[in-house]
């Protein structure tokens, strides 16, 4: 009954609050447009004034109702109240961050030299953004006041704590993504300052330098991102301390925050590394041709992404290393999820790379028979791509898969890992995909062989073999390896002397019970003897 009442109050309060904020922002913007001589939109004014007139008293009424209910401890700790609070903070954060980005971009672009279309429009746009920013800050302050009233920040339990963790997680991760994006963009513009992407004649600039708008965008993204990132990082670090409650320190969302950071940093770093490796090989093969604007933007992007990815990866890895499970304990779900996903990505990338290399090799060996009209450079791009992907993918897979393989040899918990759903999804997933590729590719070859036997279409035989053998051979090797791991896991499970962690726990409990009973009997006996 109480929950139904709560749903009503908080949904009504939230909906009316959105109406109040939207009404206020729009009314101020309409008045600003009127002040700047852009006319007075009567219909819009009537609409938003109407919304404000209806929603403001509704919100005040429901807020008053909430204030009465909140005198009770139970209400202050209710999960729905926390959802309401963090929904307000989320809306406030979105409005504040988006308007701050727009504001920074609008101010920085002309400051860096780009021309303003119309000064009045520019000033109006700036003030409109300030209005949205103030609306967002108002919501943030409102949410913070509710949190202060509740006096339980960081001590919530159950879903009440999850809403807070989710908010901090989302703010932190979106801030990290924006910071990475902005930092890469700013670095890329730095490279462009050293070597412009286009060779323009030294003529007077008519509209201002071309780089002013993108540089302003990247700086705005970086600064907005850093602000959000710091909120997430600060709170997650607060709960990393040994003095923090165990529930906070060990929460899945806090661990996910750090592992997502590691994954983001590592992905950016590896993609940039693979691209640089590929371009380096193409340069060695003599294939880097064409005008500068075709290759320099991508190359400078990779050169910018490399250090940014490395810093993020090492920074987040440095945070999780001291918190990782002790060597003999079972790892957390988030850690295991990360290891299996990273292994899967690494293996998929390496697989793609090896297929490219094997295709080039089979074509090189069989091209005369296949009678293809090949140019001398046909192998440059697939070979460079294949080597780059393999060089990046194989160590990534090996590094992470080795960790997963170490877990299965841990005493007491090894069997639990061998039978875990995550491991099975990983192993059977790869075995299935590899098996299907083998079936499809070998069927194609078999079809051509049959046609050749029957004397039809014999010209395509070698072509099909060339195209299908690379993927089929690679997939076959991957299928064999994963099937072998699956069989080993199954064999170990069948050994009678191997006990799962669950079995060990049961036996320990039984032993404790028996010892307790023995002690009781001994006590009774000694009492009788006395």
């Amino acid at each position, binding site marked *: 009954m109480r929950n139904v009442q709560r749903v009503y109050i908080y949904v009504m309060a939230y909906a009316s609050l959105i109406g109040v904020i939207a009404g206020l922002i729009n009314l101020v913007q309409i008045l600003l447009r009127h002040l700047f001589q852009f006319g007075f939109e009567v219909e819009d004014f009537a609409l938003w004034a109407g919304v404000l007139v209806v929603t403001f008293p509704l919100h005040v009424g429901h807020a008053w109702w909430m204030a009465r209910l909140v005198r009770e401890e139970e209400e202050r700790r209710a999960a729905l109240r926390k959802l309401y609070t963090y929904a307000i903070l989320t809306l406030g954060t979105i409005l504040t961050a988006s308007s*701050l980005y727009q*504001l*920074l971009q609008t*101010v*920085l672009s*002309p*400051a860096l*030299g*780009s*021309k*303003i*279309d*119309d*000064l009045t429009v520019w000033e109006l746009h700036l003030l409109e953004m300030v209005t949205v920013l103030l609306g967002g800050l108002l919501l943030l302050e409102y949410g913070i006041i509710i949190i202060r009233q509740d006096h339980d920040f960081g001590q919530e339990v159950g879903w009440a704590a999850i809403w807070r963790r989710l908010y901090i997680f989302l703010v932190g991760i979106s801030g990290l993504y924006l910071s*990475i*994006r902005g930092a*890469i*963009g700013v670095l*890329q513009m730095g490279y*462009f300052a050293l070597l412009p*992407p*286009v060779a*323009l*004649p030294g*003529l*007077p*600039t*008519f*509209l*201002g*330098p*071309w*780089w002013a*708008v*993108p540089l302003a*965008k990247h700086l705005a993204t970086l*600064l907005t991102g*850093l*602000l959000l990132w*710091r*909120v997430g990082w*600060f709170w997650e670090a607060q709960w990393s301390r040994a003095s923090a409650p165990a529930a906070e320190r060990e929460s899945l969302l806090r661990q996910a925050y750090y592992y997502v950071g590691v994954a983001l940093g590592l992905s*950016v770093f590896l993609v940039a590394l693979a691209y640089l490796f590929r371009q380096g090989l193409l340069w060695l093969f003599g294939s880097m041709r064409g005008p500068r*604007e075709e290759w320099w*933007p*991508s190359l*400078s*992007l990779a050169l*910018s*992404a490399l250090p940014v990815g490395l810093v993020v990866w090492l920074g987040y890895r440095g945070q999780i290393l001291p918190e990782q499970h002790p060597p003999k304990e079972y790892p957390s779900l988030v850690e295991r999820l990360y290891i299996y996903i990273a292994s899967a990505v690494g293996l998929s990338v390496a697989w793609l790379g090896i297929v490219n290399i094997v295709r080039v090799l089979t074509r090189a060996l069989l091209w005369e028979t296949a009678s293809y009209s090949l140019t001398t450079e046909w192998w440059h791009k697939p070979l460079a791509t294949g080597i780059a992907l393999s060089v990046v993918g194989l160590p990534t897979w090996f590094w992470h898969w080795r960790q997963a393989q170490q877990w299965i040899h841990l005493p007491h918990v090894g069997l639990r890992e061998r039978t875990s759903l995550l491991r099975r999804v990983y192993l059977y997933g790869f075995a299935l995909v590899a098996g299907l590729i083998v079936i499809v590719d070998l069927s194609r070859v078999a079809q051509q062989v049959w046609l050749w036997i029957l004397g039809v279409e014999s010209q395509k035989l070698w072509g099909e073999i060339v195209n299908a053998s690379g993927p089929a051979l690679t997939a076959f090797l991957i299928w064999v390896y994963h099937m072998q791991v699956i069989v080993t896991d199954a064999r170990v499970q069948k050994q009678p002397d191997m006990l799962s962690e669950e079995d060990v726990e049961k036996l320990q409990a039984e032993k404790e019970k028996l010892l307790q009973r023995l002690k009781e009997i001994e006590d009774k006996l000694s009492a009788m003897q006395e």
Partner: protein
Amino acid sequence: MREDRVFWTILSAIVILVLVAGAVVALRSNARPHQWQYRADESKPENVVYNAYVAALYDDVDRFLSYFATPPYGDQRPKIVHLHVEFTRTGELRIGTAVVEGETAYVPIYIVREHPEPLLGQRIHVEVRRIRLTRQNGQWRLTQELPGIYPEFEAIPIPVPPHPSAGNDNSTPQGGD
């Protein structure tokens, strides 16, 4: 967050940057379109192209149209009332040196565009447009439209059909003998 110095440092840096950037914009004369100066020497084709852009920036329709050999944008019916120079669609616009071939001249215009990539970074694209001019009564005049300039035409009043009830008394015969 109150005790987090890093957060407040970032926030202070943003506020200072916005204030400094605002001051720079206020002080920069070339940020304002009305600071553009016409070039006096119109014997050079590139100066004619340049002045046509400046006229468009000032929204001076008559002067802008005077730089054309024949009226641009169709027969100008309806009439052009405003000119908009769309900077946001163009990263940079440079006017090059003219190549004169008798009574015809070609002025290269370099348009640099920046396209953001979906995830990270950006691509840079340069488009070179050769604007053709012809000599007319000893003066260089444009024979084609200029990129980045968008005319706003006079609104044509749409004829409103008479309301069906307007002429009922006279046109609809009333029945009955």
